[in-house]
C-alpha cells in the first residue's frame, strides 16, 4: 500500500461516501479526531484500522480502504464509541454503513455453514442471529 495519496474534491464526494451517508445518516465532519472512540473500543486491538481513523478516512474519502478493512466486522456494535463521542458522531452507525455497503455488493461476508455444527447447537440463538448481520440485511 502506498502512503502517498492524492485527494481531490471529486474523490471526497464519491458515490460510496454518499451511500455511506445515506445508510448511516451520520455527519462525519463533526469529528475532530479526539480518538475517544478508539480509546474506549473494547475490540480495538483486533482491528486493522482503529475507529477514529475509520472516521478520518471517511472524511477524506478513502472508502475503498475501509471496504477492505476487517474493522467493521470486528465491531460488535456495543456502541461504546458513540456514547463516548463528544461531538455526537454515531460511529457505530458508520460501522454498520460500511458493513452494509459490502453486504449489498457481495451479499454475505461469512458463511453460516462454516460454523462448527457442535458449536452451532450450543451457542445461544442471539449470538447466531446477531452474527447474521454479516450475511444478509
Amino acid at each position, binding site marked *: 500500500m502506498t502512503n502517498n495519496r492524492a485527494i481531490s474534491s471529486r474523490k471526497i464526494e464519491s458515490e460510496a461516501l454518499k451511500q455511506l451517508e445515506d445508510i448511516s445518516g451520520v455527519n462525519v465532519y463533526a469529528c*475532530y*479526531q*479526539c*480518538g*475517544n472512540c*478508539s*480509546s*474506549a473500543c473494547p475490540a*480495538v*486491538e483486533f482491528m486493522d484500522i*482503529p475507529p*477514529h*481513523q475509520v472516521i478520518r478516512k471517511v472524511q477524506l474519502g478513502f472508502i475503498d480502504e475501509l471496504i477492505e478493512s476487517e474493522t467493521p466486522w470486528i465491531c460488535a456494535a456495543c456502541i461504546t464509541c458513540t456514547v*463516548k*463521542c*463528544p*461531538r*455526537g458522531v454515531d460511529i457505530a452507525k458508520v460501522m454498520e454503513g460500511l458493513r452494509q455497503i459490502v453486504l449489498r455488493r457481495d451479499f454475505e461476508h461469512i458463511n453460516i455453514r462454516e460454523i462448527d455444527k457442535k458449536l452451532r447447537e450450543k451457542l445461544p440463538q442471539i449470538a447466531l442471529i446477531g452474527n447474521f448481520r454479516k450475511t444478509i440485511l
Partner: protein
Amino acid sequence: MKRIGVFVCHCGINIAETVDIEAVVKDLKDYPGVAYVQDYKYMCSDPGQNMIKEKIKSEKLDGIVIAACSPTLHENTFRMTVKTVDMNPYNCEIANIREQCSWVHKDKNEATPKAKLIIKSVVEKALLDEELEPVKVPVVRKALVLGGGIAGIQAALSIANSGHEVILVERQSSIGGRMAQLSETFPTLDCSQCILTPKMVDVAQHEKIRLMTYSELEDISGFVGNFKVRIRQKTKYIDWDKCTGCGLCIEKCPKKVPSEFDQELGKRKAVYTPFPQAVPNKPVIDHENCTYFKTGKCKLCKMVCPFDAVDFDETDKFVEEEVGAIVVATGYDVYPVLNMDEYGSGKLPDVIDGLTFERILSSSGPTGGEVRRPSDGKVPKEIVFIKCVGSRDPENHFPYCSKICCMYTTKHAMLYKHRVHDGQPYIFYMDVRAGGKGYEEFYQRAQEEDNVIFLRGKVSKVYQDDDKVVVCGIDTLSGSNIEIRADMVVLAMAIRPSKGVEELAQLLKTAIDQNGFLTEAHPKLRPVESLSAGIYLAGCAQAPKDIPDTVAQASAAASMVSNLFAQEYLLHEPIITGVDEDLCSGCGLCITVCPYDARTLNREKSIVDVNEILCEACGACAAACPSGAAQQRNFTDKQLSNMIKAILI
C-alpha cells in the same frame, strides 16, 4: 402649514442617471406644504450645505427634506448643518432615493415615480415633525463593581485612580478571587499572590474605594447614570469596626472544617479568614459549622476576643446607594469532577481538578508547595494531565473552549517537573492553543526542557487499581491506545460562569448566552459593554479568559466608565413615546409590550406614566395603545397615516 424645503441630490450620476431629477423637482414644487425645491450635484459637499443654510434663511423654511443617500450616512451631517441656522435638527429629514431607489432600479421610468413617492411620504412626515430636544440625564459619578477577583480589583482601582468613587462588592469575606488561589502564573511563572496582594492592599487603602466584602447585590432599579442599588451585607457575627484582625478567635475555635480556599484539601476553623493574606484581614463566623449555633454551647471566640467584637445576634444589613455605572466581574467556577462519570465521578481521591492542583503547588497551600497526592500524601512519580474535560464536548457537557487550560496544564506539568525531578508528567490533549504573547515559547520549553510527554488524544476511562489510577487513552498521532498506571490525575475541568450569574443577569436586565456567560453588546466592536446601557463586563463572567486578558478587559471597562463619567449629562434620543393623559385609560397594554420597563401604571390617576430616560424609542407601545394616547414623537399615527397615503396617491 409649515414651509418645507426639498433638496434633491444628484450624487454625481449615482442618482441622476436613473432618476429624472428635473421631473422630480417639477412634480414636488406643486406638492402641498412644499415651499421650495432645489437640486444640486453634491448636496453633502460644503457648497451644497451652504446652499441649504442660505435657503433655510431666505425662504423662511421651517422644515427640510433632503432626497439623497441613506440616512445612516448623512442624516447626522445635515442635522448638524441646519442647527447652525437655528433650525431644530429633528425638522431635517432624509428621503433615501439612492440605496433604496436609484441603485436598485435600472429604468428611469421605474425609478423616477418611485423617487417621487419616497420624497412625498417624507415630506408628509416633515410637515408634522415637532421640534425635539435630546433628553438630558444627569450622571451620578460613582461606580459599582461586582466581584473582587482580579477583574474587579483592576476595574475598581482604575476607576478610582481616574478620580471617581467606587463601591466594590464581593460575596466572599476577602477580595482576591480565583487568582489568589493560584500558585505561579504562566508564561512568566511569577507567584500569583506576590503580584496580586499589593493590588488587594491598594484597594483596601484607596480613599475613593468603598470595599464591601461578604456582601451581595440585592436589588437594582434605575438606568444608566442613575442606578439605585441595594446591597446586602451578610451576617458576619463579628463587628468589623471593633475587630482588629488579631486572629485570637481563629486560634481558639475548636471546630475544623474543609477549607474552600484550599479546595477542601486543608482545613479552616468555623471562625475564619479564607487565607492568611485576606483583605480585609478580618474573620467571619460560618453559621453552618459553628458549634455555638449548632449546640448552643461554646462561645470560645467571644470569650477570647479582646475587643468584644463577636456578636452572635447580628443580622443582615442593607445599604442603599446611587451609582452611575456598574462593572460586572463575577468570575468563574470550576465544573465539578463529579460530573465526569468516565473519570470516576469524583469518587477517586487522586483524580483532582486543576484548581485543586494549584493549591497543591502553592507554597502557601495545604502541602506547602510539595506535590503530594490527596489519598496518602505520597509524591506521585507518574502524573497524568487531561485537557478539555467538559470543554469542547457539546454532546455531554459544554461546546466552548475554556481557553486557559492549555496554558495552565502545560504550566502544571512544568511546575511538577521542577518539584519532582524524577517524575514523569504526561498531558493528554486534543489541540494546544497557545496563542498569546510568550505562550508558544512556553509550550515549547515544556516539551524540550522539561520532558513533558504530550499525547494527542482523549482519555476514555480512568479507574482505581490498587493504589494506582489507571488511565486509558489514545495517542491518535501514533494510532496507539495508551494505558498509564499513574499515581495521580489532574483534570483540566471546563470553567463555568460563577454561580448565581443567571439571577444577577435578570436583576441587571442584561442577557446571558447559551452557556450562561454574560453577553457583550457586540462580539468584536463592543466587547466590554453589556446589552444594558451603563453596565460593563470584565473577566470570566463574559467568557473564559486568562489573567492578561482579564486585566485588559477590566481596564477597558473602567475606561468606559470614565468616559461615561466625563460627560456633563447624558443625551437621550427624544423620539420617545409619551402619554396623552386625556386619552389614556390606564389599560396597561403598553406596559406589557415595553422591553425596558419604561412605562408604569399610575394607580392614582389611572393612567400610565413614562420614564423618558428608560424609553429606547422602539414604538411598540404606540402600536399597542388602543386609544391613541401613546404617540411616538415624530412617528405619530397621523404622520405614518399621511406617509402611507402619500405613497398610494
